[in-house]
């Protein structure tokens, strides 16, 4: 009896390769059942003879991939020189590979766009040895167009006339119409070089009909080369007639360049000599408190933490700190406690540390000094069970801010770079310039903030998209706001943060809230210190600002309707505790439309977030216009991850296929949830390993 050289691949049939569509897979036009490593985020650019695709792919779960694509095809339609199209894909693995059984996946291409790339498939991939992978599948739509072998009902063929607004789910067409089989093989020739051949079931009917694709042979070849862990390049040919290239740049939030960071060592815990804890002699010294305050302040200063308030009694101490450096709250707390262990008199046994942000207490953490001494060399999880997080308001008398706390002024001068994607005239437009910003901390919770920016270079103002909005123009006048060569006021506000009751936080902001709106915004948030659930309410009063973004406001009347004065939302936030976070907002949007926004993010403990959101309001798809409803993808990249030293700075990207007037909210700085959550137990516990770092 012969033994087949088959076994399940050691890596769970994952691949770093991306196909022509930018989705994980070792083939070219055809899908496979391979997945990317969990959490990987990759951008792929592929090009051949007038066809380009730029795809952002995220491995949402080990068995689920999501992709967003921007494709450009020259001369596809007589109406456009280049036909630009946005599309979304999903691929789900139904079965993992077994010793004999192949992995099986099911997928949808372009399931929520115009449908020009639409295709569905069921595909199986099996590894044979370490190097060879064989794939076979059956496809519908584009993937059922070459040598169809049968049909499952009717499918509306793609036509430009039927595109309409796009953005609709055409679920009736999924897995309908003609279907065909496809297959292929990929082979890892070396550690870096992989080769692939496929038999394609995509006949490029649409492109053939207009004469921009005329390859006869449905056989494609590709060679992929891994330049380093992050970059791969590919050369390929379709039918031996079309030749093209693609490049993939991939990151995995789980793989930091310097795991654990390269920042300086913390101070070691200062351990008290036995018997010293009973010595309360220092309490008789009138100058002791002043000296201790200075010592604690100096010690915290060495680790870039700010002392906000302090109270030391015979056996306990309560310290208020502001953490502007450590992205992991646990690290700020760990370093504070170690500073205290080296500065406070031996009799002080109970240590309370309150995190202050925007002038209000977020939470108070309590740890016994003997536990700090005892657990310094123990696994971090033991320290987590030894500390307690409570609402600071449960301590009736938190220390008052030190005299040096208010007033204080923080300023920043930084370059800025703002961009707009997918304008039909130019897919990427941007402005760059300089920004000056400042925060004046007037008193407890009172902050005056402002930011002025000046464009130095850019073409954001040249957006060519015609404003054909049918509802009040709340966001679609972007170009008019962006086309400013003189300095503009980005925002100028006075805000008051407060604590209304235990678990309850408040914010009131008034002034020039954002580039397009002035007014006032009020918010209340309920969030217990140890809760993964929060509720919020926000009400805003707005006036549209002048296009020059100085001190004036303009009429609320726009050619397609009047911008209402009031809008607002009720929000529910929930951290699922498994790396996913959900948010549901319901209420009235800027254009007066009523509806709801649902957001789902995958959150990594190191601060990376990758998510998607969608808003549906009572504005009909027809009135909304292209895209049918507001939706987008957002990514947050913590800079600490990139550079390996702690910083709270991060870079946010929001990619919307299109920004229109439906489902839009006013942008207010300092919304409560993001600020408060950082100082609460569930968020701090996520990266608790940094407590001792």
């Amino acid at each position, binding site marked *: 009896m012969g033994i087949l050289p088959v076994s399940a691949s050691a890596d769970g049939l994952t691949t770093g390769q991306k196909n022509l569509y930018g989705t994980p897979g070792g083939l070219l036009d055809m899908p496979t059942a391979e997945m990317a490593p969990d959490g990987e985020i990759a*951008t792929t*650019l592929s090009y051949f003879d007038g066809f380009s695709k*730029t795809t952002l792919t995220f491995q949402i779960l080990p068995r689920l991939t999501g992709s967003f694509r921007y494709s450009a095809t020259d001369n596809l339609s007589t109406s456009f020189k280049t036909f630009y199209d946005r599309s979304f894909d999903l691929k789900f693995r139904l079965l993992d590979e077994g010793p004999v059984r192949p992995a099986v996946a099911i997928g949808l291409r372009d399931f929520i766009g115009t449908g020009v790339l639409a295709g569905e498939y069921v595909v199986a991939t099996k590894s044979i040895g370490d190097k060879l992978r064989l794939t076979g599948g059956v496809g519908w739509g584009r993937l059922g167009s070459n040598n169809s072998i049968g049909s499952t009902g009717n499918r509306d063929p793609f036509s430009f006339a039927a595109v309409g607004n796009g953005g609709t789910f055409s679920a009736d067409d999924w897995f309908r119409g003609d279907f065909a089989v496809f297959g292929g093989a990929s082979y890892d020739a070396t550690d870096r070089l992989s080769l692939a051949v496929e038999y394609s079931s995509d006949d490029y009917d649409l492109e053939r009909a207009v004469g921009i694709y005329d390859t006869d042979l449905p056989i494609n070849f590709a060679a992929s080369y891994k330049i380093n862990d992050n970059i791969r390049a590919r050369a390929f040919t379709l039918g031996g007639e079309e030749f093209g290239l693609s*490049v993939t*740049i991939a990151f*995995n*939030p*789980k*793989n*930091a*360049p*310097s*795991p*654990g*960071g*390269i*920042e*300086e*060592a*913390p101070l*070691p*815990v*200062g*351990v008290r000599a036995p018997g010293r804890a009973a010595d309360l002699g220092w309490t008789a010294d009138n100058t002791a408190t002043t000296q201790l305050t200075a010592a604690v302040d100096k010690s915290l200063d060495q680790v870039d933490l700010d002392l906000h308030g302090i109270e030391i009694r015979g056996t306990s101490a309560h310290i208020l700190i502001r953490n*502007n450096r450590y992205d*992991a709250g646990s690290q700020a707390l760990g370093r504070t406690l170690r500073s205290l262990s080296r500065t406070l008199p031996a009799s002080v046994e109970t240590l309370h540390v309150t995190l202050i942000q925007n002038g209000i207490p977020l939470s108070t953490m309590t740890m016994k000094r003997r536990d700090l001494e005892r657990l*310094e*060399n*123990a*696994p*971090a*999880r033991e320290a987590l069970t030894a500390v307690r997080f409570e609402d600071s308001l449960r301590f009736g008398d938190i220390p008052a801010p030190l005299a040096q706390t208010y007033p204080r*002024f923080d*300023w*920043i*001068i*930084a*370059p*800025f*770079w703002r961009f707009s994607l997918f304008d039909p005239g130019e897919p*990427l437009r941007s402005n760059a310039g300089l920004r000056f910003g400042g925060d004046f901390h007037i008193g407890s919770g009172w902050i005056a903030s402002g930011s002025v920016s000046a464009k130095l270079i850019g073409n954001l103002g040249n957006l060519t998209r015609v404003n054909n909005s049918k509802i009040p123009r709340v966001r679609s006048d972007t170009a008019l706001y962006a086309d400013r060569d003189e300095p503009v006021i980005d925002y100028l506000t006075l805000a008051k943060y407060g604590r209304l009751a235990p678990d309850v936080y408040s914010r009131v902001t008034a002034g020039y809230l954002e580039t397009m709106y002035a007014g006032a915004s009020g918010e209340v948030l309920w969030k217990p210190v140890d809760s993964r659930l929060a509720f919020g309410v926000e009400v805003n009063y707005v006036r549209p600002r002048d296009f020059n973004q100085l001190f004036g406001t303009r009429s609320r009347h726009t050619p397609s309707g009047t911008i209402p004065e009031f809008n607002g939302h009720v929000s529910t936030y929930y951290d699922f505790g498994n790396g996913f976070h959900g948010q549901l907002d319901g209420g009235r949007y800027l254009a007066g439309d009523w509806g709801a926004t649902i957001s789902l993010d995958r959150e*990594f*403990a*190191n601060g990376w977030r990758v998510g998607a959101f969608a808003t549906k309001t009572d504005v009909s798809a027809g009135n909304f216009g292209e895209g049918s409803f507001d939706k987008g993808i957002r990514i947050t*990249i913590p*800079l600490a*991850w*990139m*550079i*390996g*030293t702690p*910083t709270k*700075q991060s*870079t946010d990207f929001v990619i919307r296929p299109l920004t229109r007037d439906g489902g839009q909210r006013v942008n207010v700085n300092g919304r409560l949830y993001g600020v408060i959550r950082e100082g609460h137990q569930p968020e701090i516990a996520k*990266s*608790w*390993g*940094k407590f*001792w*770092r």
Partner: protein
Amino acid sequence: MFRKTSIIALLAALALSACSNNKSDLDSLELVKGIFSQQRKIQPSDPQVVARSLTKAMANSEGPLALLHLKRTQTTTVLREIETNGAYRTWAAYGSSDRRSLTTKGGIITATRGLGFDLMSSDVNGVLALITRRQNGTAKLVQRYLNGENIIYEIVADCTVIRGPEQTTKVGNQTRHTTEMTARCIAPDHEFTNTYLVSGNGQIVQAQQWLSPYYGHALIQRLR
């Protein structure tokens, strides 16, 4: 075509290259330093410089001293004790304000800080007991690290400790009579062998131990 990638690099650079009065914000200089210090080529130590530093430390200081050699970076550092916590001693470079530290228990490194890819904590009691008693046996060795997500993971190794030959060893300026103890350790994804030299009174005077997947082996010698 390649615009989108340069976007990310450009944006990251722009977002970072700020200048502010807040010491916690990164300025452009720090960014550049940050990027290069992550990738910098650490110079191997010059034996003569190390020898001078050693002589100076022996002559001008009191208290415990040790010598650390990291195989991966080919660096040798004279360490002085800066703090103790029970059986644990924390060390830092002698004659340097370099804020990195190292913790040992009974002569075995149990933690590092500021080296990068830090060893966060260890359970060494089982191995330590066998070694100091110069006994054959098996014990677990647990070493913990932070992963790229800032979450602790453990490398749990099963170690077989074997008593080896007796030998004389030169440690610092002294010649010591020692017993060589070897621990052969097997963890799910790693295999390593640690070698310890133990003095007659059960003190580990030298440990050549596997520190982490990144650093591989480190050698620590107790000088005083």
